[in-house]
């Protein structure tokens, strides 16, 4: 005998993940516009690695390949990781990071739905700790007047590590706007002096600020089709804004504006695509607010006072640890029992 309900809505995990991938496209398009097509190579590399690793792990765990390879979750991890690391990175960097994310941080914990940590962020953390130098060579954005590599030259570097004759890596790459800010502040410059440097645009880094806006647009799409709830992005951005705002108000010469933090680094990507991973974030509304607000605060603290160029990944992972506790503490009252004291 079969039991009720006999009907279900035509929705699937695969469809949800596919929509999230689609939502990344505006940001990726702007990325390609400002930094060249190298990012597409990283995304492709990461995708192939993710699917291959997923297949191997499923085989080892004796799980069916079909339903899981088609759930698009590995692809999403791959894309998010590729977007978090420099586009002009050697190919093995992408492969190592992605394989670690899928094999260790996803499948060893039980696969889809069971991983406590965001796999893409684990991949990022492993890379930034193991290969910090490679993780700092970001392509100089288009329109800065510097030397720009052709697509062929980018491919040559990615797969063979060879640059055109007489060209050094430093000539075509730079530190991120966030990193540069931190370094220059250490050298004694004021925020205003630094912001006048050519790599900065209206809000944050030239080019990267628009990529961030692209991710925000994708995020709004996800909000509109209710794949993500507003709690996570709103609480994260509000918390980041508030923390940055307090520091900025107290000492504007040493602490940059909250808007700069919003549109720098992985903040927008994190707010709409990373924190919103349902598997690794709380399930209750209140819990989501606490989780994302904590991530916003930690992101700021790591960015400003920590040793890493960005704080998004570690903030996410630290808050991931707290999820079971947050969930347990924020259980809502059920129907008819809202008046109860307990």
């Amino acid at each position: 005998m079969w039991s009720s309900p006999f009907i279900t809505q035509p929705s699937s995990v695969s469809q949800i993940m596919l929509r999230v991938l689609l939502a990344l496209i505006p940001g990726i398009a702007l990325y390609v516009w400002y930094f060249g097509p190298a990012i597409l190579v990283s995304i492709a590399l990461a995708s192939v690695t993710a699917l291959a690793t997923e297949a191997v792990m499923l085989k080892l765990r004796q799980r069916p390949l079909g339903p899981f390879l088609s759930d698009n979750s590995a692809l999403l991890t791959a894309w998010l990781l590729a977007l978090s690391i420099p586009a002009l990175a050697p190919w093995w960097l992408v492969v190592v990071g992605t394989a670690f994310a899928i094999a260790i941080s996803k499948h060893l914990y039980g696969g889809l739905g069971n991983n406590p940590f965001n796999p893409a962020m684990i991949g990022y953390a492993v890379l930034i700790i193991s290969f910090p130098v490679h993780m700092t060579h970001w392509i100089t954005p288009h329109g800065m007047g510097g030397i720009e590599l052709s697509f062929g030259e980018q491919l040559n570097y990615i797969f063979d590590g060879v640059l055109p004759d007489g060209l050094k890596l430093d000539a075509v790459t730079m530190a991120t706007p966030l990193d540069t800010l931190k370094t220059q502040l250490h050298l004694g410059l004021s925020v205003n002096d630094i912001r006048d440097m050519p790599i900065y645009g209206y809000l944050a880094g030239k080019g990267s600020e628009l990529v961030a806006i692209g991710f925000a647009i994708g995020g709004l799409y996800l909000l509109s089709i209710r794949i993500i709830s507003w709690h996570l992005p709103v609480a994260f951005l509000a918390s980041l804004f508030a923390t940055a705002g307090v520091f900025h108000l107290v000492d504007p010469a040493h602490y940059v504006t909250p808007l700069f933090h919003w549109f720098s680094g992985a903040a927008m990507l994190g707010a709409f695509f990373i924190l919103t991973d349902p598997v690794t974030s709380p399930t209750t509304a209140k819990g989501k607010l606490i989780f994302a607000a904590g991530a916003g605060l930690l992101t700021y603290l790591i960015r400003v006072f920590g040793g890493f160029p960005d704080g998004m990944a570690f903030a996410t992972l630290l808050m991931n640890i707290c999820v079971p506790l947050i969930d347990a503490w924020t259980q809502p009252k059920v129907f008819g029992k809202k008046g109860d004291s307990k």
Partner: protein
Amino acid sequence: MRPLFKFHGGVHPATHKAESTRTPIAQAPIPSKLVIPLHQHVGNRAVPVVQVGERVLKGQIIGKPEGRLSSAVHASTSGTVNAIDMQLVAHHSGLPDLCVTLIPDGKDEWIAHSGVDYRQTEHTDLRHLLRQAGVVGLGGAVFPSDMKSYSHKHKIKTLVLNGAECEPYITCDDMLMRERAADILRGAEVLRELLYAEEVLVGIEDNKPEAIAAMQQAVLDDKHAHMEVIAVPTLYPGGGAKQLIRVLTGIEVAAGVRSTEMGVQCFNVATAYCVWRAITFGEPLLSRIVTVTGNVEHAQNFEVLLGTPVDELVALAGSKPDTDRHIMGGPMMGVDLPSGSVGVTKATNCIIESSPKLFPPPPPALPCIRCTRCADVCPAELQPQDLYWYAKAKDFGKTQEFHLFDCIECGACAYVCPSQIPLVQYYRFAKSEIWQREREAQAADLARERHEYRLMRIEREKQEKAERLAQKEKAALAAKAASPAPAVNPEPALVNAAADPDDTLQMRIDAAVARAKAQAATAQPKNVNTLTPQQQAEIAEIEARRAKIREMAAHAGADDEPPKSN
């Protein structure tokens, strides 16, 4: 406009109601036989009062109510009792139950019956009439209506009349309201009297404009005071009693709380109709409206004699050949019937003929990704993803902490789950396991109590014996002291034993007999072996249902991953 309230969550499945509302309610013909279960209501099964071979008249009681919570069962038409035995019934357990099989004689000859004027009749008598007429809740809960029409404990302000009919496909209440609005509201008036309720609120989902109009017209025509017909938003499960009460009054009735404690009582519209027929015309509940829809040529509502075999009923609507199962109720909470031979009962509001095309089996379940779509739609405001997690882990204590028993099994969570997890099955599994453990714990408690009592008794008997012996010695000593004492006083106990060996032996025998008697007296009433056949049947039924649920849960992917493809 009355302000309406919202309940949390809910879903909007395709309604499929238009198919079965194109034509009026049709009278289903008298079938070749009637299989009438004696347990069609909540409470004790009715006791058969007819013999095999006996001729019965339409409306004659064939099963009389037993105990406080029970209801009468009647012959739906005149004919001969062919059998009184265990048959498959339309119940989610899928287990057989005691049924009266009646072969109609086609005469449809009524037993003498007459109604009363409810205004001139004592409430106690009205309730007795309802019980004798077999009137129970026709919304699906089949709770005896006489037991719901008391108001002595709590003041009832509002009587909610449930015409919401939120489940897809089902239209029996819709058609009843369109065609028999006046009698429904008159029945509601009787119930209002019985409850001393101040107002009657009729809640109908706004996808039934014809029914709303008919009911509103009937309120005007009969000049019903204190009565209001209210269109409520179409949102599944808005027809759940608690959800409708919430929408109409803003009151949330928690699980385990009776709505009457909060001043509200709720009846289904079809129940109100039957109340009116039973009181005013003396007509017991012999038939009900059943929607026959799904994989049929022409979906329609029928007025069906209780006991009509489902096979004969669906043939009237032209069940298509690729039909592979009959679903009783709606697609969200319905029951897959064990057979087409079962008889229509008081709970049968709808038969959906199902085919693999109409209701394709769901794809293999994927793991939960904690997306909380289930929590977003849960009308009980639970966290279904956590309940699922703990039910799967068989951590039943945790499932209770997460309010498992507040779950109304509406299926909204499973309906929206992108991983296609059969969530409700997990909750049913957890509930049945918890019930079983509680029964085991109770049995263990009883056994422990009995054991402790026995030890205590043995101890007490020992003491009593010792006291008796001591007294005897005393008496013997006293006797010795009184008589001329010998020069040497021997050891008293020895004297005692030597003096009367038969006495102690007799005492031991007496003690043993008393012990045996006491044991028999204390053990007997508590012993599981002395359960009534009905209790035993109930236990057997529960056991079988558990086994079935377990099996279903296993099939549904009790493992954390879907079945392997190779």
